């Protein structure tokens, strides 16, 4: 009589997840741990790594490049989150209204989301040429023929924020819309019957319902903004921009790692970046727990 193989069916689960787990172990978890280790060394590729403990981190606080990058990143994050949060909400409210041509206009408004970040950066690099289209649009009527959008130390970071927001606002509008669609219409009708103005309806009915969406938009846009890299890389003349005004932490990792070949410092900067992002994620979880 054939013995039935007493293999527990559930071991198959382990077999199914194993390829993924192994892959992540090799290509995600191990490199992160390796990165933590690297951040404790001084390694320039030519000589073997030299253990320095927490020196790299200690030195970061007096490293002007790091402090500049940190400041720039925080400024960028502020500019890429608050205006985006507000504008995308307004856009969602706008396109939630019913009017002729809404679908077409919404699609047009959504176009910035389609091209990859690189494409957007290349196109904007051309539009922001000192004697280019944006100068013409903003300067022609004032008689100005040259605006250094990307090479002026004040304008450059603002241009980065503007380009980022251009693509982010339509994207987050979508998220808001998904949330708005979930608001029970009865609530709104009730408010309308009670004689509330659109503004009051919005403030007392919509916003509370949108709380988790609001937190989501805030968190996502923040995490995304912290990691920004491609935009600054393509839109700056030299990675870092004029007087390092567009040097963000993501770029600094590349600079330390692949321009200066200070691998240990590159790793240290990335650890700091990681920590900041973890803090934001933790913040979101805390918020959600309070809300939920």
């Amino acid at each position: 009589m054939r013995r039935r193989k007493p293999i527990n069916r559930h071991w198959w689960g382990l077999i199914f997840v194993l390829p993924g787990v192994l892959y992540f172990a090799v290509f995600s978890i191990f490199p992160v741990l390796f990165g933590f280790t690297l951040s404790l060394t001084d390694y320039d590729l030519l000589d073997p790594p030299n253990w320095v403990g927490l020196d790299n981190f200690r030195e970061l606080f007096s490293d002007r490049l790091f402090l500049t990058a940190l400041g720039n990143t925080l400024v960028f994050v502020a500019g890429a989150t608050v205006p985006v949060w507000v504008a995308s909400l307004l856009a969602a409210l706008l396109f939630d209204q019913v009017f002729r041509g809404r679908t077409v206009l919404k699609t047009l408004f959504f176009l910035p989301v389609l091209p990859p970040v690189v494409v957007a950066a290349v196109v904007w690099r051309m539009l922001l040429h000192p004697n280019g289209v944006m100068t013409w649009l903003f300067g022609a009527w004032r008689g100005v023929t040259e605006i250094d959008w990307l090479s002026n130390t004040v304008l450059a970071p603002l241009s980065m924020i503007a380009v980022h927001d251009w693509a982010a606002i339509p994207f987050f509008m979508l998220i808001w819309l998904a949330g708005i669609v979930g608001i029970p219409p009865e609530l709104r009708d009730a408010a309308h019957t009670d004689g509330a103005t659109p503004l009051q309806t919005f403030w007392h009915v919509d916003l509370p319902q949108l709380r988790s969406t609001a937190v989501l938009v805030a968190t996502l846009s923040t995490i995304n903004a912290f990691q920004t890299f491609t935009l600054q890389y393509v839109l700056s003349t030299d990675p870092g921009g004029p007087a390092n005004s567009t040097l963000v932490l993501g770029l600094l990792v590349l600079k330390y790692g692949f321009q200066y070949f200070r691998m240990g410092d590159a790793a240290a900067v990335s650890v700091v970046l990681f920590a900041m992002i973890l803090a934001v994620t933790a913040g979101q979880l805390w918020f959600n727990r309070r809300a939920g």
Partner: protein
Amino acid sequence: MTVRTLYLAMLTSTAIVLGCGVAHSEQVTIKMWMHEHPPRIAIDKAIIAEFEKANPDIHVDYSVLAVSEFTTKLLTAFASGSGPDLFNQSVVRVAQYYTSRILAPIDYAAMGYADEKALTSNYLTGFEGIRFAGQLYGLPTEVSNYACYLNNAIWKAAGLDPNRDFPKTWEEMPAIAEKLTIRDRNGVPRRRGFDFDWPSLPAYWLTLNTMMHQRGVNLFDEAGYKATFDGPDALIVMQYLVDWVNKYKLGGPQYTDTRTDFLAGNLATDCSFGIWGIPQMHDAKLDYSVKPLPRFADGKNDNGYDAYAYYMMVNARSTPTVRTAAWKLARFYTDHAVELFTGAGLFVPRQDVMAKTSDVDSQVFLTELKKARFAPRVVGYNQIVDVLARGRDAMMQGGQPVASVLPQENDDMNAVLKREKARAEAALK
């Protein structure tokens, strides 16, 4: 077994042993890496073929790498122990290789020279950049210095004579450049008379060092670990450059780089080409003149642009046999300097090459070269040049005063150098 079979067996086995012996005899392979410079590649291959024929026991594994990736690839190759045995690289990188003990000192015997003198006596100059602690670590494959090219048509159209009116001093330059500049109704220069090549970091590096040398000072000290970009002369140099952009508005980093503009006929004067620019001028069909770089009226030294060089070096981490063969190849290669010059425009100040440069334009370069200093070599070149460029931006694009930015730049450079020095010392332990 018969005696005959035994005899046959002995003969065959001896033949096999001998044959294997011959096949396993010393075949040395030299891994050679060069930059991508299309006119030179064909010449390289011919030279290598000749070398292999003359040295059947040496094989050359030749690779060409893109210019923009050469430095990174070299570093990552050295890091993984798979670096080339023989390679050609710019002088700005050599300090780093030297401190990491990648460079092998010249083996004169392998090259067939009695001593250093026997080698250097063939050259006018060019070894300064590869000399460390009195020893030489490479052979120059290109030595270059910039001079000024003038677009004769534009000069004449502005009513100026390239020969008489080209300024001899920096002080006179703004006025002349202004005459050659065409501006739009807002004063924005549409065609510049003269500008510095701002976007190119190497050109900026050379410009700063040159001007400092002209005033009799240096950017760094002898050892190359302390920045001395402060003091009244540094202020004068930097203020001149800042005024060029902000006060006279004759150009700036936001405009197209000068080489592209000059070759397109949209710039009256450019001083960022070397002797190798001459064929490019012909290709662009420009009617040009060559003039020496302006000096400072109150400057101490009569030098033109600092010279820079490319050197052929040998990897100290290769085996001794390979290193010997590599030096042999290096000598053989550089002995073809004349072909490399006539075919690829690579100038080396050797007797045989200089014999080919009797035309007026080339003579300007040669005369300047005799007076030129060598661009300083610093470890951490990438970081240093970044500090200089970003400081420049702060002054030019950010409007900050020179007097406050310069000390900051100096401090930043010293911080970099201090860390590089500490690292070099740690590596030696």
